């Protein structure tokens, strides 16, 4: 959506390398969500951030929400082939009764 800009669009990394995916909102975020999607499947929830400055980690994936609450980053440490897929940021924006998604980042991890 135009409300959420995600970058990069695609990423190819060597196994073991770190990587970062960014998500920027044009409006104030109420909640920022990260999902992973494999081809032909539904979205899998990774984590949710709500407070400015918040940081959450799950296994080798860390997500941060900046202090101004309009930008988030997803960082993967020591990437593995199992991390391959499409990463999507989603958000509930203040004053809107809907949910927006970025266009996704396609991640390929080369063994």
């Amino acid at each position, binding site marked *: *959506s135009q409300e959420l800009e995600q970058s990069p669009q695609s990423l190819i990394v060597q196994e073991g390398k770190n990587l970062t995916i960014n998500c920027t909102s044009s409006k104030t975020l109420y*909640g920022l969500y990260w999902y992973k999607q494999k081809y032909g499947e*539904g979205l899998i929830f990774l984590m949710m951030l709500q407070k400015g400055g918040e940081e959450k980690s799950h296994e080798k994936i860390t997500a941060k929400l900046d202090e101004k609450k309009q930008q988030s980053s997803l960082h993967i440490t020591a990437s593995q082939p199992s991390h391959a897929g499409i990463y999507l940021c989603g958000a509930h924006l203040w004053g809107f009764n809907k*949910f927006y998604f970025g266009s*996704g980042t396609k991640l390929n991890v080369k063994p």
Partner: protein
Amino acid sequence: GAGVSQSPRYKVAKRGQDVALRCDPISGHVSLFWYQQALGQGPEFLTYFQNEAQLDKSGLPSDRFFAERPEGSVSTLKIQRTQQEDSAVYLCASSLAVLGATSYEQYFGPGTRLTVT
């Protein structure tokens, strides 16, 4: 336990046909969303239900699209007189909480892939 299910998983329709896509949310879930996902894109919001009330339908592309959730559980997305541009994956998601709650978390179904020929 059972997750969100959608049926059919695949649907091929001829242009002009009507289609109905079904979503069975997780039992007891209050919130239900429909999204449209074109190839290589992120999901686009279509509509949001809180129980049986449709709180936002601003994402429905045209008046050919209609969604309902009459008893606050199962939902149906109906597309009348399908067009080629309707070809996409239609995703359904449900949540125990209402949108905006701090505990809000959506669970997605596998989607219905609609191809209009």
